[in-house]
């Protein structure tokens, strides 16, 4: 059984699920769009940032990061629904390698998360924030892919250890909320208290958001290659951990 066929088969199924869950797509885009259109615009008229950009410009990459991390980690729930409805058995008794199954699931999650990220990018363009050049757009894409990959794998790792699809979003939220708040998505970390800065240093999403912001509005705390490097290491680690735990998952 060729690896590509297995991965493609799993990916194709995730796509069908995604496209059939219309409410999920709408909900996943509408909520961040409201953040942009209401909080973003509202705050823009109240605050001025040190760099001279509007708050909306500052916040838009953060909201894209938020969309990516939430949709990525939530894609792990599909494993739990598969457990619930018994379909995981069908997948696991096929004569294929579990690693390929995990990669197929991960790739499906990355794709759906990326599609939602792109919709958000369009939404951000509607309120006046977009990457200035093709190169910048390419950089944005790279960051979006690696943020998704890292958190999809994290979601799969959690799903491998859990059984209850209803509890999963609670656990995921519990984990993702602090990561999001401390990522510099909503306020600049440069002016934050030291303890917050210290925590933010070990927050992988911080590098993702910083990279997105650097690519879109040219403002970043760290050089883009540093952001990218950290994200690359983190996502590789997550794929390995996710793959390991998924191989061990029980029904």
């Amino acid at each position, binding site marked *: 059984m060729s690896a590509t066929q297995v991965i493609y*088969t799993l990916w194709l199924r995730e796509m069908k699920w995604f496209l059939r869950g219309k409410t999920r797509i709408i909900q996943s885009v509408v909520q961040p769009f409201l953040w942009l259109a209401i909080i973003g615009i509202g705050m823009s008229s109240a605050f001025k940032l040190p760099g001279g950009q509007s708050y909306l410009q500052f916040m838009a990459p953060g909201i894209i990061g938020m969309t990516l991390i939430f949709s990525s980690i939530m894609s792990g729930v599909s494993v739990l629904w598969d457990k619930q409805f*018994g379909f995981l058995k*069908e*997948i696991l*008794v*096929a*004569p294929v390698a579990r690693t390929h199954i995990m990669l197929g699931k991960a790739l499906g999650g990355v794709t759906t998360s990326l599609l939602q990220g792109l919709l958000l990018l369009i939404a951000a363009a509607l309120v006046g924030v977009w990457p200035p050049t093709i190169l910048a757009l390419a950089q944005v894409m790279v960051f979006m892919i690696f943020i998704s990959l890292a958190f999809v794998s994290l979601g799969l790792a959690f799903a491998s250890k859990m059984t209850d699809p209803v509890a999963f979003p609670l656990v995921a939220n519990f984990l993702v909320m602090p990561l999001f708040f401390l990522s510099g998505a909503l306020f600049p970390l440069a002016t934050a208290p030291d303890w917050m800065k210290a925590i933010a240093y070990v927050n992988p999403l911080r590098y993702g958001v910083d990279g997105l912001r650097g690519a879109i509005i040219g403002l970043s705390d760290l050089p883009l290659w540093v952001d990218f490097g950290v994200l690359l290491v983190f996502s590789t680690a997550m794929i390995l951990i996710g793959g390991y735990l998924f191989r061990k998952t029980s*029904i």
Partner: protein
Amino acid sequence: MNNGYAIETDRITRKFGELVAVDNISIKIKYGEIFGLLGPNGAGKTTLTHMLCTILCPTSGTARVAGHDICSEPDEVRSSIGIVFQEPSLDNNLTGRENLDFHGRMYGMTSEQRKARIEEVLSIVGLSNRADSLVKTYSGGMKRRLEIARGLMHRPKILFLDEPTLGLDAQTRRVVWEQIEKLNKTEKITVVLTTHYIEEADYLCDRVGIIDMGRIVALDTPQALKDKLEGDVVYLKVDDVKKFLRIFQKSPLVKGVKVTGDSLQLQVGNGSKTIPRIIETVRRNGGQVQEVSLKRPSLEDVFINYTGKAIRDEGPDVASRFGMHGHWRR
């Protein structure tokens, strides 16, 4: 690869902690058979099936399925078997056809192979006209049939059916039985099914293994199992009960005789073969047979004889009852 047997287990054993779910079972199942594992819930049927399907590893002993060792060649085993699980395992958000297509892809079938085979298996289970509806709109019986179709997709040599008609109504059960029989004949497929329905084992299976507390306590054709009980009873109504009571007490044809009401109750080995000779005996002694009837032992009687209890629903299977879900193997 054909070593004569579809399945050959060698002292296969599986323990969950202290509990021995499958205890030293050695059985041989021939190609082309419909083989039934009959036992109460918790007897070890599902555990045994899961081991043969390479989902669980045996604690000791081993088995060869379609000529491949379940422990050292799990992928070869998986490619040559189809499985229909006890619990549903379909993707409700896909159509019937998409479920089958997914399966075909996972088993490495090409696009043309899948297309042709999907039509075939759909027509075997009679679902062609509903193939493009989402599975969530299917009835319980349709889902079961789709799962059987899916089990057949990759042309397995052996099909495992774990409680194939659990929770189905009598009519649907009959349809599923007929389909299992049909595919055993037309597809020349070996069928191994577990069931706790006596009628199912009796109706469908060429051979039945009665499993209790993890052990095979009896194994033969349903007919032979019943014959072994030597428990046929002939009820005979004659004109002179007392006279024939004496005669039959001395006759080598019967093993026991009692009077019940105005008729004689004769215990014999094989009722249908003995009845003509009983009637002849009555005639020869100048009597007249007014009524004769035969009660054969059911498989249920066989079951009670070997396990000392009637089969009944008594909760979930061992593994889940004790919260001991085995780790799935890769």
